[in-house]
């Protein structure tokens, strides 16, 4: 992969000196022989054409929005609520006798007068209206950019509304300018869920109880994961937050094991729940056949029940034999192809195993907003310096809940298991990359263009903003946020869905028509005249 070195040079070459210096720190060539550092979670360079979003998107759009039975009121002008309406495909269903608000979009639609005189009264009145019309299980309030500037106290409004209506009202100070990306919003959402929801309701104790943390049920992922878990015999107490319900989250401390899928967005809660309730967390990966299988085996080992272990193997055998043959057929078609992955804060790592199973190697990978631990592994957490731009994101401390804290398995047994299972551990993206591959943080427009042109990968797994740019270059781009409106992609059935989809995308006949025959045929000398529509006037 010596081409990758040239790509880095090409990229740095287009930048003015100061930008060059900054961007250089955000990319590296994997060298297995060295301990490598990458700069991440720092401010975005203005004008660079980043793919990043904001704190509000990370809080409301990602973590809070998927909770189905809450009315999520966005306090701000209309745009923020509107753009997060139905665009992330976090599916959800109403519980029995419960409600589902996922098809709705609620906003205070702030006007000029609200900016001038403040919007607290309007917000309170909006909550009153929401309660009267919808009678939801709970309400969330999300702040947007101007709210912080004009000094609306949404927490006071939430407190008053809670007293008035007798339902939980959660307020999130997730103004878009906080932090440097969506990541700040994850943290803010985690803090509030931990402080006001987790641990507030008790549940009947069931065997093999687990929580799925950082799983947002995009395209039905969570349903596919849970289908297999339930088949084995697990009880899924709560999913944070795909298809999540308020009560499930309130009861989540009753489970025996937390499984962390998206480390970036939910590791805060995973850690805090462990400190407060003694509930350990384990990193899992439900994407790809081997990863899913490995995760299932790790879970079974934790519980150590012989029947559960046997049932795990039975289900694995059953499920994998269902898809084996077709996976192999597709692999034969895709063998030897290359991928570039650029996704938010977790999927650029999680999909590499599945791609490998299909014969595709990942030559470039990066995150929009992950932190150094997602790249380098959690061991480096003590060495991460929090810079000025993220310093105002509140760090909360929780303490042992004397009443509800208990050890799920004896301490020495847990220590023993820690040697072979990924408890409180995530080793990051870099470790799994091949030597010589390129790791790049906060990838921008010009870098995407250079990488795709130079490396001509067979597939780029990325988002909607760059999908069509990449495809104009003749390269298939698969959305790994929205799954191009398909899914699920997690679990066994998800793996085969993904395989079918990307095979179709890479092999669709249209690619062969990009060059018109008259451009290929050297004997023809017909000239291509200017297109009519481009003429300004007659």
């Amino acid at each position, binding site marked *: 992969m010596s081409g990758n070195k040239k790509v880095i040079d090409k990229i740095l070459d287009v930048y003015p000196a100061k930008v060059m210096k900054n961007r250089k720190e955000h990319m590296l060539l994997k060298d297995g022989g060295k301990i490598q550092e990458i700069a991440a979670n720092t401010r975005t360079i203005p004008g660079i054409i980043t793919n990043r979003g904001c704190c509000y998107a990370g809080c409301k759009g990602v973590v809070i929005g998927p909770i189905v039975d809450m009315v999520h009121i966005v306090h701000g002008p209309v745009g923020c609520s509107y753009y997060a309406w139905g665009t992330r495909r976090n599916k959800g269903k109403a519980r029995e006798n419960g409600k589902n608000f996922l098809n709705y979009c609620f906003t205070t639609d702030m006007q000029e007068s609200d900016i001038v005189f403040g919007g607290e009264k309007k917000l309170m009145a909006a909550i009153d209206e929401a309660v009267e019309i919808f009678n939801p299980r709970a309400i969330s309030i999300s702040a947007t*950019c101007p709210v912080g500037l004009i000094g609306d106290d949404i927490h006071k409004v939430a407190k008053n509304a809670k007293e008035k209506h007798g339902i939980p009202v959660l307020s999130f100070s997730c103004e878009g300018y906080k932090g440097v990306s969506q990541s700040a919003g994850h943290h803010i959402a985690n803090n509030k869920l931990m402080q006001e929801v987790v641990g507030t309701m008790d549940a009947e104790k069931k065997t093999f109880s687990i929580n799925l943390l950082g799983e947002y049920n995009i395209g039905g992922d969570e349903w596919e994961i849970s289908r297999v878990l339930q088949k084995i015999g697990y009880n899924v107490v709560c999913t944070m937050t795909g298809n999540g319900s308020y009560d499930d989250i309130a009861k989540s401390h009753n489970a025996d094991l937390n499984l962390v899928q998206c480390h970036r967005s939910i590791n805060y809660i995973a850690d805090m729940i462990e400190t407060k309730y003694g509930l350990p967390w384990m990193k899992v990966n439900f994407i790809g056949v081997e990863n899913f299988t490995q995760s299932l085996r790790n879970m079974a080992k934790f519980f150590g029940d012989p029947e559960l272990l046997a049932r795990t193997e039975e289900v694995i055998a059953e499920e994998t034999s269902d898809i084996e043959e077709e996976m192999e057929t597709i692999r034969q078609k895709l063998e030897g192809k290359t991928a570039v992955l650029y996704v938010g804060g977790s999927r650029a790592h999680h999909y590499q195993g599945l791609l490998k199973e299909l014969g595709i190697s990942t030559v470039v990978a990066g995150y929009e907003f992950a932190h150094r631990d997602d790249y380098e592994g959690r061991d480096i957490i003590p060495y991460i310096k929090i810079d000025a731009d993220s310093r105002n994101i509140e760090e909360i401390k929780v303490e042992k809940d004397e009443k509800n804290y208990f050890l799920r398995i004896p301490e020495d047994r847990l220590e023993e298991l820690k040697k072979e299972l990924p408890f409180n551990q995530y080793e990051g993206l870099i470790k799994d990359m091949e030597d010589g591959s390129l790791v790049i943080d906060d990838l921008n427009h010009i870098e995407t263009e250079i990488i795709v042109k130079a490396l001509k990968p067979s597939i780029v797994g990325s988002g909607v903003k760059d999908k069509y740019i990449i495809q104009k270059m003749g390269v298939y781009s698969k959305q790994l946020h929205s799954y191009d409106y398909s899914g699920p992609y997690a679990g066994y059935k998800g793996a085969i869905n993904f395989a079918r989809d990307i095979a179709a995308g890479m092999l669709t006949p249209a690619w062969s028509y990009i060059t018109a025959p008259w451009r290929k045929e050297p004997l023809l000398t017909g000239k291509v005249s200017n297109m009519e529509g481009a003429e300004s006037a007659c």
Partner: protein
Amino acid sequence: MLDLTPKKRTERSNLKVNPAKTCQPIGAMYAALGIHKCLPHSHGSQGCCSYHRMHLTRHYRDPIVASTSSFTEGSCVFGGKANLSKGIENVFEIYNPDIIAVNTTCLSETIGDDLTEIIRATKIPEGKKVIYANTPSYVGSHVTGFANMAKAMVTHLSKKTAEGSNGKVNLIPGYVEPSDMMEIKRLAKLLKVPNTMFPDTSNVVSTPNTGKYEMYPEGGTPIADIVDAGNAKATIAMGKFCSEPAAFELEKLCEVQPHVLKTPIGIKATDAFVMQLLELNGGNIPKELEFERGQLVDVMVDVHNHYHGKKVGIFGDPDIILAVTEFVIDLGMVPTIVLTGTPGKQFEAEVSAMFAEAGLTDSVVMADADLMTFHQMIKETPVDMIIGNTYGKFIARAEDVPLVRVGFPILDRMGHSYFPLVGYRGALRLIEKISNALLDKMDMTCADEDFELVM
């Protein structure tokens, strides 16, 4: 679907539910894409820019590129001056557009960043331009943002430099599709009217796949043409909400006579557009155009039974649905509810006047309203069809009526970027969509013995 929407409407003046509008900057971004070699720039925190790019990308399935000032908390305290100056410098150095069109967000507007001053103090390379529009998200809607950026093009670029006119007519098409802009230009060409259209997104957001990505596609109005718009003999502004401010600004700055017309959707509005072009430029109606119009009338006579008397609920952006409402009335349909999320008493007055003229006494018009209200109105007075953007699909499914997709955004179907709704041909297409939707539903739901071969 939408089971939690109660049939009965209750007082609700603070909580918007399922808005029928979005915020200003996305309209400004779309307008800015209609200038050749222009990079739109969003002066705010980067979330806005990402959302606006995403939404336009989903609508057009084409690259939508824009830069942002990427505010941090610090910039909120000290102002966004450094972010914008740095942003502009970086953009010119790395991406080399000919022009940057800056829009603002609720953040920079609330802070009160002085764009004039910041941009004056910024180093702009020789021969390059920066224009800007203030687009506070807490005023109006995306339509307002489009209008503000179209106006800014005039404010910052157009010049009256010559004695007399350049013989051209300015065409400001409004917030319509690239396919519509192509069609408007085709009509002008058929009538031999020299013109400058701006903004013009045709061949910008509907580009071909050639295997070669062009950051600045072939389309877009050349800057020189927008400058020269100050020398035109007249301006036709299509759509009061989107295009009137730019046309009036041209009159104010360059004394170019404005003519404000409806968006040319439907037969009456297209006739008015054609007549206005003839009046300004003289000349004859080409046979081809008369033929097209005659075909449209022919179809309106032939298949009127498909849709005559059908009740329809219409929502969307004011300029578009004013014209659509006029047309469906001409088709003999009954618009029972016409609703926009964009504020504006004028909209209500104009639609009311249409209702009155058509003798529709039970029809309702609402501005500054949302889709929950629209849905409740439909529960009260059931309709046979909904005309609106993609968000109408929830209501269409809940109420089991067909949806004809018109306007912005259309996120779940293709076609709008390539086939026009304006002009006589666009009207034909609209009839095809309306008629097909009603007949498809009939085919799927009628009793076997009522199933017809010929309809």
